């Protein structure tokens, strides 16, 4: 940092004054140094006049270097915090839904473990056998089950439900003998939320199973917070056909687990 004035015979008496006014420094420096000179004859004169006072200049030049050091430390700290914040924001914001899903403890990703069976999206009539129970991928009925936060109180056809999963819905299933209080807890997660629906499911090997296309999580406690986490992270995101609706479709439990065939007013 400015130890001497450019071209002037005198060195600057202090470091602080130039550090504070970097922009204005150049033209004013000579004049300032000159006016400063009589005010601080001992320090400025010591350096300028040479060998007569040898100790003073050494001290001055040591003192001067603190300015740049302090500035560079400040710059370093600020730059590091700016870069650090940027990196943190990028990492936080850039987390995809797949990353978030993979962090849910116990989730099974069939898109990785069984890509063949979940890659089949064909439409088919009648009952269909599935590799998983409840199914998470494969052929399905051409009518989907309405999934606008619908809470179905009786079993529905997997062939319809799977079509909803293809549209990006999350399907929450529970063992039919689950206590009413637990079912109420589950319906709080689902009711009113688009791209979610729930129904009882016969023969479930856990109290609760929640699934999206290619993803499944089975838990034994209806109050498990992972249920809501799964629903929130995967609803819509897991869609195989982004932008496709959950409205219309089959909205009743009328045919039980038997798929019903498409009717004109059902959409399709």
């Amino acid at each position: 940092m400015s130890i001497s004035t450019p071209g002037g015979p005198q060195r600057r008496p202090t470091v602080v004054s130039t550090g504070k006014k970097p922009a204005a420094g150049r033209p004013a420096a000579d004049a300032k140094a000159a006016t400063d000179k009589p005010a601080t004859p001992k320090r400025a004169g010591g350096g300028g006049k040479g060998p007569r006072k040898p100790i003073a200049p050494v001290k001055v030049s040591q003192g001067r270097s603190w300015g740049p050091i302090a500035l560079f430390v400040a710059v370093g700290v600020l730059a590091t915090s700016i870069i650090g914040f940027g990196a943190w924001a990028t990492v936080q914001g850039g987390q995809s839904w797949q990353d978030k899903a993979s962090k849910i403890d116990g989730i099974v990703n069939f898109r990785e473990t069984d890509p063949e069976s979940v890659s089949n999206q064909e439409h088919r009539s009648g009952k269909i056998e599935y590799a998983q129970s409840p199914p998470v991928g494969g052929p399905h009925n051409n009518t989907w089950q309405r999934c606008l936060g619908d809470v179905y109180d009786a079993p529905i056809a997997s062939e319809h439900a799977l079509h909803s999963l293809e549209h990006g819905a999350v399907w929450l299933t529970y063992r039919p003998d689950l206590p009413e209080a637990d079912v109420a807890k589950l319906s709080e997660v689902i009711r009113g939320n688009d791209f979610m629906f729930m129904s009882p499911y016969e023969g479930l090997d856990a109290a609760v199973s929640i699934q999206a296309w290619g993803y499944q999580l089975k838990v034994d406690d209806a109050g498990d917070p992972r249920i809501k986490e799964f629903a929130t992270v995967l609803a819509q995101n897991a869609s195989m056909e982004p932008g496709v609706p959950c409205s219309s479709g089959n909205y009743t439990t009328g045919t039980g687990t038997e798929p019903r065939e498409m009717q004109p007013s059902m959409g399709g």
Partner: protein
Amino acid sequence: MPSAVQETTVDEQTTQPAEPRPTSRTLRYLTLAVTALLLLGVGWTAATLATGRTPGEESAEAGFARDMSRHHAQAVEMAMVAYAKGQDPAIRQLGYDIALTQQAQIGHMQRWLQEWELLPTGSRPAMSWMPDGVGVDENGLMPGMATREEITRLHEAQGVEVDRLFIELMIKHHIGGVHMADGVLKASDRPEVVRLAQAMKQAQQKEINELRKLQQGAG
């Protein structure tokens, strides 16, 4: 000993006026440049944080995008019934218009959420973003939304009853929709949100008038 020390100091002194000057000049330029860069950096960061920030998890914009998507989804279902089963050709035409418009608008709003790096499903209750504090009703329904039973009745209706019920439900639905659009217009000045909310408000008000005319004609 003391004299030796003094001599060394004297030597340094004699060389100093010649050598440190160019070095310190460079140092000063460097300091100026670094300071300028630092100020720029701080200013840019502050500006980015203050203005360039996208709406957050609990913002009115995010709440509107999520809730209006759900509100629209029900309108799409009702409008598709009208399109498929309406008796009056004007009802079928209006059903087509409402269904396609609102489904497309859902796409717009979902795209915002993606750009803002937010999930489609919010962590807060529906309507909690509304400035006037109007929430959901006892059935968890947002303003103007039909109950499941009303939607089922519309699905099962036949003949002119489809037209009558559709008009009744859609007028109510649109009034609620206009109310929500007003809410976000009060709370937000993000251009894309304001633009779509104003367009929704205008179109739905116009359609309310149209539906009322059809209602009088049918009644």
